[in-house]
């Protein structure tokens, strides 16, 4: 075996020696780069933009037209808690559903797409945090789905007679942050299935059960949970969507009465304001689901690193 005499090294690691983590601003710079990348991807498919706009128009109009058809009968079901304007009720339902469904369903889908196109391999070779690609890839979902908020509110208010009371907007914003965080916690749990449980293709069960099944049927996007049998109302209390709908409707719908209980759990604590119960529930969901999602996703990556399933191509 030979002895090799190397030249004087003139190399540099990707950042300073001994600095085990990239500074936070570099993680933000990476997130910004992801945002620009996703914008370029989104922008590069011009026909996609037309289809995107058409899809928003059609789905939003569909909900409103159906809503208007049954608005008078539906209003009587709302009860005093949510006011009497069904269009306002449905605008909040549709908006919250878009936001939370994006945060819950898209992480798995984004990771899956990135894995199969080979770009995830590249991200995992860079020294950034394993969570940066997960957050960065969500930029596309935000570009695709969050603007629907403006269309939904705009159509609802301008064309279909939805009205809102913005007196408590800071509180509504706080609830929005909470349900987005809780939804993303579930989204990270769902994304962790990709690496932790090797769910590489097809439908991911966590997002299917919670979003497609429970939230769609029970949380009360288009009707109040009071129309459901009592047992199903209790099941509705197990997902964050239900509390987000309840709180935001009480805060934003004109004529809504914040102190009238609707959800079964609100009847259990008659001394507490229903909005407070919603707040506590969403805070608990956030505090439990976000760390659990972070842990599950990190464990999934490490498990894949051990088992050799971390990258597709490299």
């Amino acid at each position, binding site marked *: *075996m*030979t002895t*090799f005499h*190397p*030249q*004087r*090294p*003139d*190399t*540099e*690691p*990707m*950042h300073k020696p001994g600095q*085990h*983590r*990239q*500074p936070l601003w*570099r993680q933000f*710079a*990476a997130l*910004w*780069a*992801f945002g620009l*990348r996703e914008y*370029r*991807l989104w922008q*590069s498919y011009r026909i996609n933009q037309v289809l995107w706009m058409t899809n928003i128009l059609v789905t939003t109009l569909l909900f409103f037209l159906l809503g208007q058809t049954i608005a008078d009968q539906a209003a009587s079901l709302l009860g005093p808690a949510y006011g009497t304007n069904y269009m306002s009720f449905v605008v909040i339902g549709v908006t919250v559903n878009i936001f939370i469904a994006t945060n819950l369903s898209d992480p798995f889908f984004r990771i899956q797409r990135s894995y199969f*196109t*080979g*770009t995830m*391999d*590249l*991200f*995992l*070779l*860079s*020294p*950034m945090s394993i969570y*940066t690609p997960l957050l960065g890839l969500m930029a596309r979902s935000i570009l695709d789905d969050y603007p629907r908020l403006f269309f939904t509110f705009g159509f609802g208010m301008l064309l279909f007679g939805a009205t809102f009371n913005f007196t408590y907007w800071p509180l509504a914003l706080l609830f929005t942050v909470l349900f987005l965080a809780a939804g993303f916690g579930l989204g990270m749990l769902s994304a962790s*299935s990709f690496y*932790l*449980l*090797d*769910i590489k293709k*097809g*439908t*991911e*069960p966590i997002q*299917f059960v919670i979003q497609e099944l429970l939230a769609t049927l029970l949380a009360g996007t288009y009707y109040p949970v009071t129309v459901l049998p009592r047992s199903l109302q209790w099941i509705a209390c197990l997902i964050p969507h239900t509390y987000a709908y309840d709180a935001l409707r009480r805060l934003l719908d004109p004529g809504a009465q914040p102190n009238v209980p609707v959800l079964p759990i609100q009847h259990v604590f008659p001394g507490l304001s229903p909005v407070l119960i919603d707040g506590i529930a969403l805070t608990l969901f956030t505090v439990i689901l976000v760390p659990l999602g972070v842990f599950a996703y990190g464990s999934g990556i*490490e*498990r894949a*690193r*051990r*088992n*050799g399933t*971390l*990258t*597709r*191509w*490299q």
Partner: protein
Amino acid sequence: MSETTEDAVLLEHVTKTYPGVEQSPRGAWLERRGPALWLHNLLGVARLTSNKAPPVQALHDLSLRIQPGEIFGLVGPNGSGKTTLMKLVAGLLQPSSGNGSVAGTCLSNTREIRRKVSYVSTTGWMGLEWPLTAEENIRFFATLCGMPTPLARVRTEEALHTVNLWEDRHKYPSQLSNGMRQRVILARALLFHTPLILLDEPTVGLDPVHTQLLLDLLRGRLRSYGQTIVLTDHQAAEMEGVADRIAVLDAGELVMLGIPGELRAALKEMTVIEVHTEEMESPATLPPSLVLAAEHIERPGALSVRTWRVYARTSSEALQTVLDWIVQPSGRVVFLAETAPNLQDVLALPRGAATGGHDESEHAHREAHL
């Protein structure tokens, strides 16, 4: 495992075993898909069920030391463990057992390792973003790795010039040939003068001109930075001209290691005899004792002609002995050549044959295969 700055790569008794992949029987009542697969794997993660599929051992008790600034070649046939070894050094895999370090960082510290390693793989889609131009692809990666924008601009230009792609910098990957895309990947790895560059089969798909360009780059510019380069190839011949040392892997084990001259010297006791014959059957008798191995090589398009490549111990009678063994009354020899072996031939030999050892069972296997 103590931290060390002595070696660019240090592996001590590293073994990598992949868990086997269980297949549910096709057409089974509950085929594992969707929720059934999720539940099954969840139970597996919680260790409530066991994986009955046999594990796959990719590396076995491998010890290796690569010095800083060295160009180190890894050769071996498909499935020999080259890519597993590269992934392990790149921090994409964890060893099942054994220790090691990369540029002084323990193998378990994968995040720190990723700061010190640039990895170029030419398989798959190479991580290129199709809606971004070649230049944008490289700068995107620079940003992801935390490189400040002004430096990223300078380094991107430098890297694109180095791989001869500056003129094509505004082209999208779909407008580039496969070889050009490969050079974009290489340029991406040149952004950072990391202590270690891993090149997994970098010349696959490159034309001779750009293969030479790459080899010159390895010998010249990268070496001048003092970067350690580990490259794999299943073509050992290319490696001979560029690597300071070469390791030959087979079935996850290190079978030879040394400078190219030493490895060639180890082959001096061997001769390679190539025989082209008319269509005929494999010899019915066992090969003579001086034959180490023999291959029948399919030559697409060469109908009715068979090529036999026989690896024999050097002897004045070798040529005649092999001819007596292989030629049959029904066949006619149309070409015969005896050559000195090169490193590529090591891959065709039974384990230990080239270095003097002799594995009878392996030899017997090769005979049976013939």
